[in-house]
């Protein structure tokens, strides 16, 4: 099995899920306001692959 491919596809699937959160959250919050990152993150948003 191509584990890198499986991991990357799972990450892409999850990012789509996270991007959709404001659509169903009662206050329209996005993930980063619901769960603020530990430190400011500079550069590409949420990209770990």
């Amino acid at each position, binding site marked *: *099995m*191509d*584990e890198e*491919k*499986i*991991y990357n*596809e*799972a990450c*892409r*699937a*999850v990012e*789509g*899920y*996270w991007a*959709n*959160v404001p*659509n*169903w*959250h*009662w*206050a329209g*919050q996005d*993930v980063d*306001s*619901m*769960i*603020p990152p530990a430190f400011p993150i500079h550069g590409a948003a949420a990209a770990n692959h």
Partner: protein
Amino acid sequence: MKTAIEGGWVVAFGKEGHEVFQNGTVVYENDRVVHAGGEFAGEVDARIDARGMLVSPGFINTHIHPVGNGGDYLLMDNIKNDYRTANYLSFSAPLKGKFAPPAPENMAALRLFVLLHALRHGSTTIIDVGGFPGEWETYARQIESVGLRVYAGPAFRDRNTFTDEQGRIYYEENAEAGRQGLEKAAAFIREFDGAADGLLRGIMLPAQVETCTEPLLRAAKEQAQKLDVPVHTHAGGNLLEFQRILQEYRKTPIAFLADIGFLDSRTLLGHAVFTTAHPWTLYPFGDDLRLLAESGATVGHCPYKYVKMAIILRSLEQYLQAGIPMAIGTDSYPMDMVSEMRWASMLAKVADGNYQAGRPRDVFNAATLGGCGFLARDELGRLAPGSKADIVMIRLEHMGTGAFRDPIKALVEYGAGRDVDTVIVNGKTLIKRRGHQLGRGKNLQ
């Protein structure tokens, strides 16, 4: 073909339970163990070098949501700025009509990742406790390809949870959805129980004690008995649920389930944290632990998920002393049973203020034997002649672990799922030197 695993610390199963053999041997032929313990005098066809490793029965992870745990762990995370849906009082609920499940291809991608992730971290059997509906044929093919044992089924409920535009949680009954859900669950079990070369087995999944009415819970248990499959529900999982059940039935969730006949030796309860034993319930009546013990139901304990919310079981030691069968699950990310055992062990000590609580013996038993009772599978969770060849080899003798006398203690106190080196399920090597082997020959890509 007979294969011998030699040179490692073997956790064999004897008359009294697990016992460890230094420089031991496990021999398996096809899908069964033929020897586990000291030296094997017979002929073998192949040998696996296990020097420096623990050779253990594979772990039974009693709580995974294959789509959710692959992605939404972040939403259930410990610092979530939403008190009412932070999984402390309740769980996340969307605006009605606004939530769309992930596309089938995304669900499939997450499921495949989760199956492989769980396997790599030492689980050889997982209990999929439900979540998003999926394409079951694809799921069965994925299970066959990855090679993991999975108990699964479509979860169902007849009360949905939503939040309104002011963020208030409410429940909406839908009896027809519950009835159809139960029918689909039974149909799934009839069609898929035993699929994927016996790796996929059915389990009845009424979702949560407060999202299923009493008639649905009774009907689910009855169907599970007719189909001879285990049943799981989430109960004692959060304080809102505890209070809702108390308000509706004037009983705790555990007492309510006991009274309607839902609890027996084929029942697995997810969490069972908020019981009469937990001080936060402030409920001075009855004895949920006695009810659980008398019923024979198993509690699937997920310590890491709960400690992320500053909640601990009160306590593992009390539950064991009461005679409750205890198993371990993850219900979060990572699906690392080795780390989960450590959390269970350490938090048991904190819960009771007793450094002798949470013994490595008890958490290891929970992660192996604990999952066998409600599954009625006494050929899992142990290495003994006749047991299934579900074997995990875990690296122990390295810089990260150091010197040790007791490998079980070393595993629980210093080990990690990333130390898993080799995973064998049903006699097939699926993970070897940390890389997945194409176990079944079906290329999904």
